[in-house]
């Protein structure tokens, strides 16, 4: 039976040419979905001179819509001004599913609202963790609640992220899927190792890490040097680690406001020959830096997923990281040493990792193959496809949400099966005493704009764009 394919629009403020985790996530997911026979377009805002329509590798069609950028490449939240253009793109490309990415992207939030108004299925992927304490997070969470009051499905990158999102947006946990990030494991290969057969005498097994007692052990840190990446911890821990383990050195890549603290620490303790600071590096170069080391140290204070530790493990590094956010879920414990976000514990954990490596107890040369089986974008695309099928009704509701729950009445109202305006208003109204009414007002205005657009630019006067030739859908349902 041929599987149904979908026309999907990924909407996010953050996309290439700007580098970053969300950007590569969207691109990789889009590419792999196209490989599976779907049609994917990306809608983002204009970057400098990059406006209009571009095609990327594999036929990913990117719309750079012209909107003013206000803060950290997010567009100005005008709520409605995007709608006519958005409607035009959606009709042109015959989109069925709108998939928004990232909490901080206003374009994504608006697209989900307009998509629902137009009667499309919507998915939202949350890439970050947000607390509940400060004014900024409260505002962000309220906005997110507005958008997610009427969404078909939400994807989070870790289980911790799912808990966080469920609390922030008051969602039914069953309409939140956990689909982790992945990595292109071919881009993160360890240094080639000598073939056992080419060695003069066979050693079985090959030593896990050819590290003699007097060899220098290198610890790599690749991180933006910000407070929330734990650079303070790093600054405090490095002198102590180097004091406890004299035959060790550090390579630190990345830049940020905390770089000065690190420099001062190096000068204060006269560690210029032991700590090397490389400054900012491009993502392509990360692998070349990582393979120089034996241990990857990740002292972050908050992390939704932590792709970089997966990349490090894929390069064959033993990972020392703080057990915060979603990090404990990401890697098996034979690849990692967890530390509390405390200076003492981080020093102790690094000490344990160094001792384990020196005792040749860690089979780091196997990490690459293991990580390869754990994370791949093909798998991510397959799992996202299940979500699309679930919300489109191609998987029965009982199977998608669970048989017992399918008939229960308490959440079915929120699951967004229903496009009737009155049902949507009911969902928004529950957002809060004042916010609920405000949100309802927004939705009603949005609907009126939609009606106006239908009358002013009738659907049948909008041309349909020709599709990029589709690949035959890969039929690999079982594994």
């Amino acid at each position, binding site marked *: 039976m041929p599987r149904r394919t979908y026309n999907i629009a990924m909407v996010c403020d953050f996309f290439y040419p700007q580098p970053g985790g969300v950007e590569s996530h969207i691109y990789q997911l889009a590419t792999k979905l196209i490989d599976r026979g779907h049609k994917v377009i990306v809608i983002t805002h204009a970057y400098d001179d990059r406006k209009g329509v571009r095609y990327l590798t594999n036929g990913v069609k990117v719309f750079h819509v012209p909107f003013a950028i206000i803060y950290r490449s997010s567009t100005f939240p005008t709520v409605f001004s995007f709608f006519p253009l958005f409607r035009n793109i959606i009709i042109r490309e015959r989109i069925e599913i709108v998939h928004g990415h990232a909490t901080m992207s206003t374009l994504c939030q608006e697209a989900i609202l307009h998509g629902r108004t137009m009667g499309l299925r919507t998915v939202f992927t949350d890439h970050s963790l947000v607390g509940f304490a400060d004014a900024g997070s409260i505002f962000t969470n309220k906005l997110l609640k507005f958008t997610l009051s009427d969404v078909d499905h939400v994807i989070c990158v870790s289980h911790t992220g799912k808990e966080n999102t469920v609390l922030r947006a008051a969602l039914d946990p069953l309409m939140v899927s956990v689909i982790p990030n992945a990595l292109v494991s071919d881009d993160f290969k360890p240094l080639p190792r000598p073939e056992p057969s080419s060695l003069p005498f066979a050693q079985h097994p090959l030593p896990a890490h050819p590290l003699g007692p007097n060899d220098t052990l290198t610890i790599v840190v690749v991180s933006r040097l910000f407070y929330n990446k734990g650079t303070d911890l790093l600054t405090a821990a490095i002198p102590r680690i180097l004091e406890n383990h004299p035959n060790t050195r550090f390579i630190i890549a990345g830049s940020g406001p905390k770089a000065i603290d690190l420099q001062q620490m190096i000068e204060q303790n006269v560690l210029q020959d032991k700590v090397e600071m490389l400054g900012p590096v491009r993502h392509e170069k990360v692998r070349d830096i990582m393979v120089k080391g034996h241990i990857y140290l990740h002292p972050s204070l908050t992390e939704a997923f932590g792709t970089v530790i997966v990349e490090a493990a894929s390069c064959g590094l033993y990972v020392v990281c703080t057990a915060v956010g979603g990090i404990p879920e990401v890697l098996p414990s*034979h690849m990692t040493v967890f530390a509390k976000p405390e200076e003492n514990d981080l020093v102790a954990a690094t000490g344990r990792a160094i001792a384990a490596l020196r005792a040749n107890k860690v089979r780091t040369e196997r990490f690459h193959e293991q990580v390869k089986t754990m994370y791949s974008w093909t798998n991510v695309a397959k799992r996202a496809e299940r979500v699309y099928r679930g919300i489109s009704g191609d998987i029965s509701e009982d199977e998608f949400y669970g048989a017992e729950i399918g008939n229960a009445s308490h959440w079915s109202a929120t699951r967004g099966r229903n496009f009737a305006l009155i049902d949507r208003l009911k969902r928004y109204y529950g957002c809060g005493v004042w916010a609920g009414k405000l949100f309802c007002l927004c939705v009603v205005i949005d609907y009126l704009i939609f009606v106006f657009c239908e009358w002013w630019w009738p659907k049948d006067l909008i041309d349909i764009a020709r599709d990029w030739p589709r690949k035959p859908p890969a039929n690999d349902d079982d594994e």
Partner: protein
Amino acid sequence: MADGSLPARDGPYSSLTRSATAPIELPSPRLARSHLAPEDAFTSQLSPRRDRGAAVHDSGNELGPRTTRSKLGSRSRSRRRKRNWKKLLWVKQSYPDNYTDQATFLENLQRNPRLQPYEFWPLVADISVILQQVCSVTIFVVCFVGIFQERVSPVSVVGWGSFATFVGWLIWDNWVGLEDEDEVLQRRRSNRNRAAREQPSRRDRPPSSVIGLSPSATASVTNLAAAERAYPQIAIHHSHSTSAVSFQSGLSQASNTARPPNDLSDEPKHRSSSPAPSGRTAMRLGTIKSAVLIYSTLLGLSPILKSLTRSTSSDSIWAMSFWLLAINIFFYDYSGGVGVKFPASLSTNAALMASTVLASRLPSTGQVFSLTLFSIEVFGLFPVFRRYARHQSWRYHVTLSVLLVIGAGAGVGMILGGEKDNVSPLKSGLLGVLVATLIAIVAIGGCSWWLISLQKYKNAINGPWDQARPIIISRRLWDDD
């Protein structure tokens, strides 16, 4: 849907352990909301994984089992369903991606984890600090009105004020002296203990490095610091000589700290007796000198201040001074201990500006001078004294509060009642005291009770998604904030 998800109203301090989002009206949430068969749910109920860390470590060194499992499991879906769900991303789970495990979902959620419920009497004690400041401001305003209406002689106001300040200074000086002696004694004892032990390790010296100070040096350094603390106006008005000199000497003394601790155990024997008293005397002399300087500066500035705002109407001045005094009350440093160097500069500056604009309404130079000097005493020096009094003894603090309330009440009563001549000022003053006491008690008690009753609405949600607070012990020397 928003309200159903967070059971926020089930009592003030109820600890929510997990599964806050599970709908409450479900008959058996564990069974109803999972993809498990009932017997699976039963077994998972028998062995719920409480600790995520444990789960991580359980699943850790089992790569062998994992690979064999995936060979086994891919065959039969029903068999795979039996396996426990794990809160891990790298495992190929046999559950759908939107599966929500009832045993572990939101298990690390904490509500109000660091909540310390307020208690009534400590809260009252803390509020009394605010009361003191409000009363000080009231007394200042009363004095201004008295001078403005020419019912009180400005000389008597400033005379009594200065006398009280002088007495307060003597007491404060005494307290500081006592404190330093205590400190010296303690340090000598600890030094002896340290000398008995072997010399301490090279790098574990705490960065605050009080241990390294020789006692005399500490005494003088703290005195000097305290002197600067006590007279922030010295810096505002130009008295560079004293503060600069004292700062220099403070620096030179403080440089003793850099000395290694092992040659210091013998130091107290020959140094402790002589320099400490001389440091104190120098400090006192410096204080008197700066007092004289402030006095003469004010005397010289008074004629200028008198005509400063002549072109402005009085209404604007009243409004402005009201807001400035309100700023003083709102931005005052109520939590600061005795160690604060320049407490709440915004608050102090606002009050001094208020006093300046108020003084500019007064007709004669003598009045202007008196009011400005009085304002420096009330807003600059008195808070230092109050802070020390609170630090020294609880009884002093209470006495001071009571005196302030009585003073403010009596002053207001006399000012308000005095306009009609048929009421004697004594009577109206007494009435004012009565009313002020009542208001103070009601306000303090009422506010405390109100704050305590508001506690039940507190609902702070914490969990693993929060940014961790790093614990860094060896603060480096450049972080001297």
